[in-house]
């Protein structure tokens, strides 16, 4: 009797929870199922919640589209390059900020915080001109460097928090035992940093994987240097009005991000809440 009343009182809560889940997931669900539907289901007057017959045709169309493999390769190269570069550079800076006392440290931290809010949308014209003048237009390293810079401040802020949380006594003890300062860091602090490295590289990965504006405006003549987001945005030219292929391409593009996020959900939520910054 009592439990029934409690359940009734909690009903609005569960409706709200169900609604949140449905609203969050529906676009993702609709994208994936559309990708598997044959064309007659996609262009029917009554949309089907599930494909009547499942087909891989759209994935075939997407995969066989011109340059698909190349754009994947480009995206992966640019993303990996940017993330690795940001991790290495940020680790040094974060260590210096968290563990050392030096003149200009506060100013440096302030600069990092400001850089985190950099107005990238406003810099596209000068970056275009600078790249053109240095012969870096239409080249993947340009994108790598820009994505590196976009993710660097966040990476420093988060890693600094993680390093500061590791008691320096641990490393000092190792140093007393004969480790060098670098060795102590590598053997003691580095393993403890793993969750921080994971959270930040995930952030960098998402930023670089997603980035569209610079990829769109800096890669102009040399189509072979395009990345997946740009390719996806031009789907209407690539596939005509083939929505099945478009959704298949979107699914393939989104899948790595969705999978990684879901796998690392716990680190994601705690790591991001710690940094409290998206981009």
């Amino acid at each position, binding site marked *: 009797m009592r439990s029934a009343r409690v359940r009734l009182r909690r009903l609005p809560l569960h409706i709200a929870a169900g609604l949140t889940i449905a609203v969050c997931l529906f676009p993702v669900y609709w994208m994936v199922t559309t990708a598997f539907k044959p064309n007659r289901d996609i262009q029917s007057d009554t949309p089907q919640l599930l494909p009547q017959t499942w087909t891989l045709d759209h994935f075939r169309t997407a995969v066989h589209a011109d340059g698909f493999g190349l754009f994947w390769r480009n995206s992966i190269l640019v993303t990996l390059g940017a993330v690795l570069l940001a991790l290495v550079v*940020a680790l040094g800076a974060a260590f210096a900020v968290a563990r050392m006392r030096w003149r200009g440290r506060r100013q440096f931290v*302030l600069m990092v915080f400001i850089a985190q809010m950099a107005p990238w949308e406003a810099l596209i014209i*000068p970056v275009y001109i600078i790249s053109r003048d240095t012969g870096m237009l239409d080249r993947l390293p340009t994108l790598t460097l820009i994505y590196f810079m976009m993710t660097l401040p966040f990476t420093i802020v988060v890693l600094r928090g993680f390093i500061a949380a590791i008691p320096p006594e641990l490393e000092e003890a190792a140093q007393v035992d004969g480790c060098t300062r670098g060795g102590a860091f590598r053997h003691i602090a580095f393993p403890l940093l793993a969750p921080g490295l994971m959270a930040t590289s995930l952030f960098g990965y998402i930023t670089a994987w997603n980035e569209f504006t610079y990829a769109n405006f800096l890669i102009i003549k040399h189509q072979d240097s395009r990345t997946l987001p740009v390719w996806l945005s031009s789907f209407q030219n690539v596939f005509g009005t083939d929505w099945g292929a478009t959704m298949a391409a979107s699914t393939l593009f989104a899948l790595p991000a969705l999978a990684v996020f879901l796998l690392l959900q716990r680190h994601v939520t705690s790591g991001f809440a710690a940094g409290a910054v998206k981009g």
Partner: protein
Amino acid sequence: MSTVRDRPAKRLPDARPVRRSARPAPGSPRTPGRAWPYLLVAPTVLGMLYLLVYPLARAVLISFQDFRLRQLIRGDAEFVGLRNYRTLLTDARFWEVVRRTFLFMAINVVLIMVLATLVALVIERLGRVGRTAVLSALVLAWAMPVLAATTVFQWLFHSEFGIVNWTLTSLGFESFDRYPWFAHGPAAFTILVVLIVWQSVPFAAVTLYSALTTVPTELYESARLDGASAPRIFRSVTFPTIRPIFMLVFSLEVIWTFKAFVQIWVMTNGGPGDATTILPVYAVQTALSSQRYDLGSAASMVTVALMAAVLVLYFRQMFRQEGEAL
């Protein structure tokens, strides 16, 4: 690098004769080679100077020049003082865009903050299973790449085969039969708001939820003993505790929605007409489509100035939070 190693070695010649490494002892007051921290931050500083400060300086420069396609090719731009800013600020269309930008931002941010707070409160009250389910759904929506989500929303709102039109028609709103969302200004504006709110709520909700978990339960209990109602508890207990993080998320969302570009560019290109043109879109349109790089840069700089005002708020918040940690 070698100079760094030499200096402490000279300073402490006999201090640790056994150690091969020239690096000094930890915690020794005169500390490690003074250059070390500077070497460690040097790549960051150089990167920022070349990739951030230098482009920004160039943008400022261009905004004071006569810089069109000819100057882009030949590179003989002349300074024209404040002419670009004067052109911009006396243009009625520009002010219309500024007004629309603030409207767009306000609608988005209010919706995001209200919905995210509600979702966070729901998550907090759920059991373990329900909580994991909602958090997973939020993370999935959050992980959806911006461009994939934008493409999917175009499909959801497709005039002929879109499920939104089908649902609305089935519910009896016959006027939505084949309704061309992207042909009507307010409709296209609405879709972009829905898209951006859908993309932004997960981050805000997850962050606010993690803030909620820090509210001490004793406070709730004593408030309840005093007979406080749920809204009263939220106003007097919950909100004051999460206020720092709430304000942080709030300022971030202001900045992010102010900078919204990709969704608009890909979905509507600022159209139909000007209906979805906000400042970043206006700047890129002016610069790259009409080849008025000078006016585009000036528009970007006005955007940056407006955002700097928001940034001041953000930093005040940030420093209050960071406190002595800096």
